[in-house]
């Protein structure tokens, strides 16, 4: 089922590669995420003073969102994200800091990232988006609910555009696929088309 809305642009970050609208924009042989994302952040010329204080999920989401939002004038843009691991990578770090009474040292700077929606907060701050954020958990990338929910937000005029997709970070593995849905755009907004864009990159 297609709607009157379109996918304006999309991006993907996984396995050392960053692409936008199907074209490679950054590639690295670096296998470790923190080194990879740091080089990508610098090479792509992204500027956000808190970047190095953020957890891996937020770094992944912020870089992915920046690819699509850096030249975006529309500020009435809702964020609808999903993933499998929620914030478990940071949850494990917080748990380690409280597991043993001898080494008990919980940190507010870690604890605040133990929620998946924090990465949407970071993107909202950087791009001055006073819009709706929703974070769903699915065990795999699933276009169905994102498609219905995005159509609802646009039809109810809750936003002019919606930035949606998948940002997952777990056990060092990372995968981000974000796309912008708007009234006008190059790609069809349908469940099939979303799945196709996700699978062919």
């Amino acid at each position: 089922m297609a709607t009157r809305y379109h996918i304006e642009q999309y991006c993907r970050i996984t396995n050392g590669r960053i692409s936008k609208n199907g074209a490679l924009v950054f590639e690295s042989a670096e296998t470790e995420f923190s080194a990879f994302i740091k080089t990508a952040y610098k090479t792509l010329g992204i500027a956000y003073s808190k970047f190095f204080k953020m957890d891996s999920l937020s770094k992944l989401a912020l870089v992915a969102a920046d690819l699509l939002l850096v030249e975006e004038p529309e500020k009435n843009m809702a964020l609808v994200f999903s993933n499998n691991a929620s914030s478990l990578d940071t949850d494990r770090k917080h748990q380690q800091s409280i597991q043993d009474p001898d080494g008990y040292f919980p940190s507010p700077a870690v604890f605040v990232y133990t929620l998946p929606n924090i990465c949407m907060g970071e993107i909202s701050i950087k791009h001055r988006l006073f819009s709706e954020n929703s974070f769903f958990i699915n065990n795999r990338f699933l276009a169905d609910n994102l498609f219905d929910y995005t159509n609802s937000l646009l039809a109810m005029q809750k936003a002019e555009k919606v930035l949606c997709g998948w940002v997952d970070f777990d056990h060092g593995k990372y995968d981000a696929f974000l796309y912008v849905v708007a009234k006008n755009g190059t790609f069809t907004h349908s469940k099939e088309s979303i799945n196709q864009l996700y699978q062919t990159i």
Partner: protein
Amino acid sequence: MSEIYLSHNNVVSNYGFDSLAAVNEIKQEKSSLQLIDDSQILSKPVCTSRMDTEKLKEAFALLNPRESYTRLEQLLIVSLEKTIKASGVPLNERVGLLISTTKGNIDVLDTQNPFPEERAYLTVLGDKIKDFFGFQHEAMVLSNACVSGVLAIAVAKRFIQQGTYDHVFVVGGDLVTKFILSGFNAFQALSDAPCKPYDKDRVGINIGEVGSSVLVTKNPNALAKESVVVLGEASCNDANHISGPSRTGEGLFRSIESAMKQARISASEIDCISAHGTATIFNDEMEAIAFNRANLQATPINSLKGYFGHTLGASGLIETIVGMHSLHQNTLFCSKGFEELGVSKPLNVIGKTTQKSLDIFLKTASGFGGCNTATIFKKVAS
């Protein structure tokens, strides 16, 4: 577009096993918060509200479970079973399940916990609930910090209006764990006495634990007598700070304005507000600013955190449920713990439970990540 209702509902809490068990005590201005000294969750005594473990086990055993379930799963299942049963809605392909939680089974990360770490994945929790009842679709899981419960109602409404479902059962809950308490304690946000939202002597929050559930439906027949219509809802980010509320109440103010616009009502038509009111210095101040900007400073307002504590992913849901009963009983519930206004702008905090004819209420919530939500509900005309 068809109207969307909140109908049959349940709260499993320290008060008892249904919504009225809690509402009847709240009406008497009785808190369920108590000081608990349990080194498993915090090295010092903590003021909290938790369902008694033995009572929960007994209630759960009556449902004949065929495998082991975590504490949170038990809470959610016991609550949801009562709501499904009361509603009489058959769980066919037109029925969705939406789970609202911030941390799910986070206690399984503790090496002492008997359940495997995989149980911490929120979709595993979703599958357990889905399979227990035999829902035909995968559970949708919403994890959006402390606004999850209120946002979940808006999400359910939207999926129904989009035609994805005819009915959605929303179930919400989070546990009082060492994980959560150690974190809030590291923020120095915990109060060791019952919290005092909006009061000049407020010092912080209490964390509480409940399971709660509600049926969201487009079917105007067979509604519970306390049912409400969702008139408008909105959610806006502060775009300011991930752990500190906005100094201008920006996101909350915008959420309220947007929800009122959708509801096509003005501030003067709102009879009462069920606010977030965590009793931290900064949250309550932010809310006072936002409510004043929205011209709601004279509207009777309460925070229910003094009864349950902050129940995280369930908080917006139980506070909405109590709000439904408040409308139905035409009663403004006292904002427990409040004595003298301690925010910089005027608010009409409800100091005493009072009878009053009520029709429309506003529910708000705010949370980490800068998120805010506002939803407006109207009593279903009898």
